[in-house]
């Protein structure tokens, strides 16, 4: 259902929901939004739970590491007690997770190429920026693979052993040098990708074709109306 909808409409709805999550002060309503989106993704869109949870890991980590500060920070209003600190902490965590859920709902149901095309042709975003970002999305799995292979090679360079040697072997490859190599590789690859895109006519003088540009339809209007009604229902 969502995966067939216009990317820009979905983007606007995502912005609306993220704005609502930053303004609302009720963790229960945020949890309700998360539950609703989770059910929609798992039941209707058939997104594997594992994929959803994997995508949420950075948000959960951020929620965990940032919200506790509100619980332990000195309270400027001594009369409100420690309870207020924990409530603030819970609210921040709920906001972060709800933002993550909205982001995942958008990311998991949107084809990046469709989004790039819609941004270029309907939102006036430069082709160089849109396709450069798209190419960067390709690099992330390759970079992770490179990091894994580099670590394997580094481990292979340390003879197996016990004690200190085993520890050295375990941490081999987690070095500054590996980071520099990966960064250098990423820069080189980004440069080569930019060169390839230019050689394939990205900056051609003539206007680009309008091929497969997603268009907003009546269904997208219905989706937007539903989203607005949802926000109103959650607010009131």
């Amino acid at each position: 259902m969502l995966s067939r909808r216009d990317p820009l409409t979905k983007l606007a709805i995502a912005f609306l929901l993220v704005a609502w999550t930053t303004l609302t002060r009720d963790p229960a309503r945020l949890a309700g939004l998360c539950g609703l989106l989770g059910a929609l993704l798992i039941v209707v869109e058939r997104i594997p739970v594992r994929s959803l949870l994997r995508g949420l890991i950075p948000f959960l980590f951020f929620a965990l590491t940032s919200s506790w500060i509100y619980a332990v920070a000195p309270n400027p209003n001594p009369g409100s007690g420690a309870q207020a600190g924990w409530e603030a902490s819970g609210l921040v965590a709920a906001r972060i997770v709800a933002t993550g859920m909205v982001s995942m709902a958008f990311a998991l149901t949107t084809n990046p190429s469709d989004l790039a095309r819609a941004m270029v042709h309907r939102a006036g975003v430069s082709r160089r920026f849109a396709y450069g970002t798209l190419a960067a999305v390709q690099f992330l799995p390759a970079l992770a693979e490179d990091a894994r292979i580099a670590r394997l090679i580094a481990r292979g360079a340390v003879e197996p052993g016990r004690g200190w040697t085993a520890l050295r072997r375990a941490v081999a490859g987690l070095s500054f040098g590996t980071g520099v190599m990966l960064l250098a590789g990423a820069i080189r690859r980004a440069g080569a990708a930019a060169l390839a895109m230019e050689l394939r006519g990205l900056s051609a003088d003539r206007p680009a074709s309008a091929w497969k540009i997603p268009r907003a339809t009546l269904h997208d209007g219905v989706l937007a109306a539903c989203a607005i009604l949802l926000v109103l229902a959650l607010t009131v």
Partner: protein
Amino acid sequence: MHPHRPALEARGVAVRLPGGARDAVRDIALSVDPGSTLALLGPSGSGKSTLALALAGAIPTLVPAALTGSIRRPEPEDGFATTILQDTDAHLVALSVEDEIAFALENRGLAPEEIDRRIDAALTLPPARGLGRRDRTLSLSGGWRQRLAIGAALAEGSALLIADEPFAHLDPEAASAAAEALARLRRSSGACVLVEHRADTAMRLADAVLVLGPNGHPYAHGPTGPTLRAIARSKDAPRIRLPAPVRAGAALEQAGLLPAGWHGRSTEDLISALGPSASDPLVAGIVVEALGLRCRSAPAAAGSPLATLDNAFVRRGGRGVLAGIDLEIRPGEVVGLAGPNGAGKTSLALALAGALRIHRGRAIRERIAAPVYLPQNPSLALTSGTLEGEASRRRLGWTDAARAVAGAGLDPDPHRNSLAFSHGERRRLAMALAMAAPGPRLVILDEPTSGLDEAGMAGLAADIATLRGRGSGVLIVGHDLDWLATVADRILVLDGGRIVAEGPSLAILARALAGSLPVCPSDGSRLAYRLGWVPGAAGPC
């Protein structure tokens, strides 16, 4: 396009890279007519890729290098110029196959219906046939990504195609299909410039060759047959990988079995020139010797395995890539791994090395043999900054490491950053450092011949022999079945994630020549086979 105007013309071209003390290439003069193909040949580091970038117009506008001389390319109204870069990973920009093919077509401003038509056409013809419109580019193997890059370039229907090592990661069958696709471009009056180490494939297409010397100067330039003949007979010519029929022809001419002055370039040319003497066992013997198809007798491997995969299943990106793999590598054993693009060869190498999780089954590695894995991208093996750091990480004394680095023909400066070497030099450096480690190891080489010139191939074969002598177990992933058969004791053939054939190298080569395996031998063994040679049988070898 004006019928009598060259599609590409260069006069007095020289390129100097930033910080370079001398020109990377110089004194280049060439002309490529519509419907013809020029092959750019030369040893590693001779400036072929730099010249290709200059011819494509990337230098000096996109790459900061100094260009002198003049280059004339097709005007936009004549149909553009298309370039395939050496680094296919960086060449692909979109997430799906159809988006990838459409990218340049959208940029050219083609009508949407025409874009759809060209995508359909590209996916029904080699080399991209077999791909689906919505296949994800990220899940494609290196070979299939290269096939997609060629298919997308051909879909542009340009007046000029400049391709830098377009066959490097292709299995021989896919390379032939890609060559056929490029031949179609010629028939439609498109011109082509090919930079390629795999001369067998490139020479089938080339009308003319330009051979660069190690210093970036033109060494020879002219029609393909006579120029290659002259190179094959010259003592001081750059060491390039000449096509098998050319090498065989030179040897036969020297033996007086071929008329002097023969300058054919294909197997058919050679057999036709030999006439009735093509069936003479002496001819086959000379050809086998000239092509280096030396029979390797496979001694029974002894000792307990250094590494074992036992009924191993591996999944990547949510789909199974290896199924029920059984493999043992013993000390002093060299095992080749061949198979078509996308068969799962790199996945098997990574699983054996411990970089991929075994989903089902198990992997056992002897503790003595910390695996040495040399990937297709040699930079991944060089993460310690300086050469001294690389030696230290491998627990090598600097004296030993410096000797190994110098032995690879590189400057053993301990403070030099390893990433400052060129791509080919990094490959040699990584191999030299792996070689310098004492004792038996499990060594896994992933497509080690890709991008190597003749000298590099010979050096690599010598290194593998040294590893065997030390009792190391070696797994080599490769597409060149002839070369694998000369260095490996046995060969595994992988297809669809399963081992479909396994046996002594010569037996596997013989089966491949008989057409009973999903791998295609190289031109050299096919030529010798046509002349009566049967790998492993008594006779010429």
